[in-house]
């Protein structure tokens, strides 16, 4: 049943280029690659898809087992690909006509975005996470209540 190409973390090396790109060397292949998390919401630390201009290389089950510098280069890439910031605090959540303006602090820094009504824009995510979908289609992971401060919780509770 296995038709997949699984990449052994011990066999591959990643490096960030000065221009900010990612290169890799694996078996007899080397060059610029793109790396993407396949389960960015449900298993953010899990499977990474590696692809180059000439096609798919294969998949890494996780970044575990990579050499430290390779791991650092890869994690920097997959953190943004796809980019799913985690909301760690809600500074304000205000209604603006039929839209809602969120002013938040995320793991990638402050973020201000607009959503539709919370009952449509906030969905249950994997585990106890919640996923916020903004008007431009970008997703944010909303930390569970237990990890939010009391003010953020209160602001959320006002609408949800």
């Amino acid at each position, binding site marked *: 049943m296995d038709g997949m190409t699984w990449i052994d973390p011990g066999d591959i090396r990643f490096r960030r280029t000065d221009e900010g790109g990612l290169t890799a060397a694996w078996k007899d292949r080397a060059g610029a690659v793109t790396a993407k998390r396949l389960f*960015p919401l449900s298993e953010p630390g899990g499977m990474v898809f590696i692809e180059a201009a000439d096609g798919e290389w294969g998949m890494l089950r996780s970044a575990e087992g990579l050499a430290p510098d390779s791991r650092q280069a890869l994690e920097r890439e997959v953190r943004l690909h*796809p980019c799913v910031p985690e909301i760690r605090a809600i500074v304000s959540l205000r209604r603006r006509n039929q839209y809602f303006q969120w002013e938040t602090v995320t793991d990638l820094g402050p973020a201000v975005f607009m959503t539709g009504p919370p009952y449509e824009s906030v969905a249950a995510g994997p585990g106890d996470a919640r996923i916020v979908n903004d008007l431009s289609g970008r997703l944010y992971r909303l930390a569970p209540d237990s990890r939010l401060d009391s003010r953020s919780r209160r602001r959320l509770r006002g609408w949800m």
Partner: protein
Amino acid sequence: MTAVPEADREGPLTWRARLNVLTAWLQYLWPCRRWIGVSALAVLIASVLGVLPPYLTKMIIDSSLSGSSEGRFLERVSLLFAVPLLAAAFDIVRSAAGIRIGTYLMRRIRADMFDKLMRLPVEYYDRRPTAPFIGRIQHDVAQVESFLREAIPHFLAQAVLTFSVLGMLFALNGRAAAVVLGLLPLSALAIRSLWPRLRSRTLRAWNAEYGLQQSIAESLQGIRLIKAFRQEEAERDRFNRRNQAAVDRYAEQLKSAMWMQPGLRLAISWAIAFVWLAGGLQVIRGRLSLGTIVAFTSYLTLFLGQLRSTFHSAGWANRALASADRILDLLRTEAPITEPDASGEMGEMVRAKGDIRVQSVTFAYEAGRNVLHDVSFHVRPGETVGITGRSGSGKSTLIQLLCRLYDPDSGCVLLDGVDLRRIAPGTLGRQIGLIMQDVELFDGSIAENIAFGKPGASPREIVEAARIAGAHSFISRLPYGYDTRVGERGVRLSGGEKQRISIARAVLLDPPVLLLDEATSAMDAHTERAVQRALERLGEGRTVIAVSHRLSTLRNADRILVLENGRVAESGTHEQLAAARGFYYGLLEANRLAPEKEMTNGRHDLDRPRGHPVPSHG
């Protein structure tokens, strides 16, 4: 298919039927009997306490204010503070018990209704719109829950208060109280005459709401078709008509009760004025104390307030009973597909070999219109059998019998020699994978959709299944990979992408038997080839029964059955059937001559409103 025949359900409501309904609801209440006891006790005490203040007022006016000691006066006034405080405390106890009872009932009734909806067969849904069930589960349950939670304590409180107050009235002035007592039969008569009218108006209003709900659901389900055919205006008109009807019925319901409250208020005010008139003269003549008349009017206000509340409760009970009837209609619906015997022979079966035997199967969706007549064939484990025939020949019906969406009217379908009716649904679900032309996806992530038949599948298993189904390549290019949401019914994906997800779902389930119902019929040639390759990979080592009108997709089958008017007309390999120059040869010629699109049997990805179904039993 229902426990109570339609004719009986439309007949008059007998006391026996009423008792049945009551028994059914008492069964729901039985587990909360302790909380109901607490609630009833709290109501009793609060009601008795509620009767005391007017009498205390009389005592203050007649004894304490006229020359008694200040100490005694303060003592009685302090009771006026204490008694309502105690009554309020018991009211809180009653509310707390009510919350317990209500939340239990709401959870239990909703769960039972949903469980029933899950157990009812496809046939049940073939005959009715499904969207209004949402309203039934939410609105009807809320009505019944609030009634059951409040009704027992409420009616108990009413009874206790009414009799206590009546007792106090008699104690204060027997003759005047006898006049008041005469009001009871009058109000009973009034309720009895109003009840059927209220009940009819409640039902009429609900029926109109039901139609409106159905209209909204049909329009939204068929929104793409409406847009494609520019039918927005017609849909708006249809909605407006139903909306107007619903509003009219609602107004009719409100109007029937419109005069009741003002009328009752007027009657109460006049009754009190009359007591003041008659009693006041008695006070002036020294035959009655002022305290007595103050207490009497206070008790009378309480008593008439109870009568007013009884009228109000009649409307409440009416709505709740109508909802309760609808809930019981659903809960008492019997499924024609029977659960397997306790001695089900497949209980211990982990994985079937995949031997399928169809024996003398006859089936009709409607009595007198057989779709399949005495169909018999045998598929050996690992064999691939194609089924073809003209539209309406019974191909898809056969597939639906093979996965037991319906049971045959006569004959049987055997898996490894065991009648499907004797296999537990969960066990059967693991043995048979079904891939249809109209792929059913729900609004979740791609990963969740692939893992639908195997919750808890690991990401690795999901990715591997998608790879075999030829879906991994497009999924890995989606912005959020396997966590991308597909939208309601998979609207954000193309037909080919949805089909590959459904194949991945079947790969993950890994069933020994695979049923393909026109799995590639709505696809263009390029997509069809890709999906066909995925299906061939999936079919390796399994029993495959594939229904298709496109003969090119069946060419490699080990055997092809040709259905004609619900009977197996021919059977053999592609080469044998082509050489025989029979029905198959005719279909082959038609395939060659007719453009592929014209050969489809009307089942496309485009949604259609459920109110305009396209019959397709073939």
